[in-house]
């Protein structure tokens, strides 16, 4: 298929490049005129916000790396030098540290949106799975990044999390020694974590690219969860959604600025301002807030291997979610029971997050176990059954005509009269 592209751009320079390498045509097609459902709500801002977060993290990270020293005896002081002596170093570091939190907040809301509006269902299964891959890469990156300042939490977090792998029978110990490059978390560990922490954001960027490629093949889902049927259902991405995303970006930056400038250590743990000491473990060791739910799941099982398996399963279950959910209806708007259950699921996630930050005693253990049980019950049992039992509300005809003629008695989510049930969404 070799041959020059017929460019429609008038600017001669743009035209010259575009003829030989049609990136401008591609940008115009994917971000200019790209047909986007017209009924997005503000939940659909969060993809763009995640992208901004990634860009901010990479930019600040590169400049921080210019002044950071990955050596156990110098790392802590080099971070303090960034904070005290490097011009605007405190700004770069606080943006980077809080940026991790902002990134996770945004991505969790982005995932919630996908779950609530059924964005993981056919034909967007692969799109969703790529998203879960991004989440896993983010978690690995964030974990390694937190080790770099070489404070007490850095050191003990690294020790505890890498020790998870020792739960694997037979090869576990060997894997942990391999991860450490020694017999405890030490300089070789810090060095490789720095190397990988620098590498992984670019892997994330690669998967984000695939995520967007997949998105632009299937097209976006929308709050109604029904397919785009005609051009009236869509708007060109620019200027409609560039304008709408801009508002989200400004609000996001406001929250971000609030953290960075007025509460930069709110989400950090004070112990990480104490240099790492391999002989003294802090009284309460907790991971960063965005890992607390998984940490709670880990601790809710009294068996080492069991806890580790359960923790990894809690995310792995998302990979098969498109097949666990048997309902043909995407949006929770038309699924009265699912709508309740997903809120319980969110509640259980929040409870897990809360419990994860508390000592594993008494009521916290009970709460952690109940919430963990619900998490798996929700995905593995309730969703498969629900698709068979639940009677969805009638779906609108199209996005541009969202109002559907409803029989008078169908309001309030009660039993629907015969014949008023939703037409199951056509599968492509």
């Amino acid at each position: 298929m070799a041959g020059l592209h017929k460019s429609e751009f008038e600017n001669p320079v743009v035209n010259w490049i575009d003829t030989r390498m049609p990136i401008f045509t591609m940008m115009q097609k994917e971000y200019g005129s790209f047909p986007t459902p017209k009924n997005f709500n503000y939940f659909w801002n969060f993809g763009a916000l995640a992208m901004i977060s990634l860009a901010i993290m990479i930019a600040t990270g590169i400049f921080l790396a210019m002044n950071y020293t990955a050596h156990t005896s110098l790392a802590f002081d080099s971070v303090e030098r960034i904070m005290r002596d490097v011009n605007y170093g405190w700004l770069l570091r606080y943006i980077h540290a809080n940026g991790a939190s902002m990134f996770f907040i945004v991505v969790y809301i982005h995932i919630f949106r996908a779950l609530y509006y059924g964005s993981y269902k056919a034909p967007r299964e692969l799109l969703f799975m790529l998203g879960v891959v991004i989440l896993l890469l983010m978690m690995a990156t964030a974990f390694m990044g937190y080790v770099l300042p070489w404070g007490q939490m850095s050191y003990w977090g690294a020790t505890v999390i890498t020790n998870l792998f020792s739960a694997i029978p037979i090869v576990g110990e060997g894997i942990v020694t391999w991860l450490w490059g020694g017999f405890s978390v030490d300089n070789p560990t810090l060095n490789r974590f720095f190397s990988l922490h620098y590498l992984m954001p670019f892997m994330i960027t690669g998967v984000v690219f695939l995520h967007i490629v997949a998105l632009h093949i299937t097209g976006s889902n929308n709050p109604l969860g029904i397919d785009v049927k005609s051009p009236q259902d869509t708007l060109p991405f620019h200027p409609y959604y560039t304008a709408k995303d801009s508002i989200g970006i400004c609000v996001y930056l406001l929250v971000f600025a609030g953290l960075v400038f007025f509460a930069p250590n709110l989400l950090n743990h004070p112990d990480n301002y104490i240099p790492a000491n391999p002989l003294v473990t802090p009284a309460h060791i907790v991971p960063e807030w965005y890992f607390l739910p998984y940490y709670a799941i880990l601790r809710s099982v009294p068996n080492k291997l069991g806890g580790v398996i359960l923790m990894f399963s809690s995310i792995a279950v998302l990979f098969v979610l498109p097949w666990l959910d048997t309902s043909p209806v995407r949006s929770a708007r038309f699924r009265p029971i699912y709508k309740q259950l997903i809120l319980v699921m969110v509640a259980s996630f929040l409870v897990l997050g809360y419990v994860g930050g508390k000592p594993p005693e008494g009521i916290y253990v009970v709460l952690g176990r109940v919430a963990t049980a619900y998490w798996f019950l929700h995905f593995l049992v309730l969703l498969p059954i629900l698709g068979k039992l639940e009677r969805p509300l009638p779906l609108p005809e199209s996005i541009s005509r969202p109002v559907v003629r409803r029989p008078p008695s169908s309001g309030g989510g009660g039993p629907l009269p015969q014949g008023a049930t939703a037409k199951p969404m056509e599968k492509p």
Partner: protein
Amino acid sequence: MADTASATVRDAITTVGAADPAKRDFLKLLTGSAVAIGVGAIVWPFIDSMNPAKDILALSSIEVDLAPVQEGQAITVVWRGKPIFVRNRTADEIKGAESVALNQLIDPQSDADRVKAGKEKWLVVIGICTHLGCVPLGNKVTDPRGDYGGWFCPCHGSQYDTSGRVRHGPAPANLGLPPYTFAGDTKIKIG
């Protein structure tokens, strides 16, 4: 130009509602410039973070105590990562440096321009050969000082006189002079 702009502003203010391209353009212009200002403001901290940090700047000026340097001796101190030669010149050396005719020099400069008035015995130069950056010999009594009694660069044979001026190639210029001031009789502040 200014008229059109103010007209646009007036339009933007007076026109309420209605799809008015003028208002949209003005709004876009305003938003666009605000974005540009914002981006500019956030780019600066990144650029500035690559400038010398405070701990580097704190070392950018040093004080050197000259009292221990005997006549005829020279010491090397480090300033901004570079060797600085401080030489306590003998009367003969000063006379020799002052009496050279400028037209004999590769890089003509009088000795008076290379030392502080009234402190002629102290020569303070950057100890880096202007040829390719080697450090010339001549501070230690046992070092070769070349034919002109100053410094001799072992790399390519450049020779400097007792004023730090190049007298024999390949170096093209005299030894550099760091910015310094006298803080008392036997103390200088470099930088």
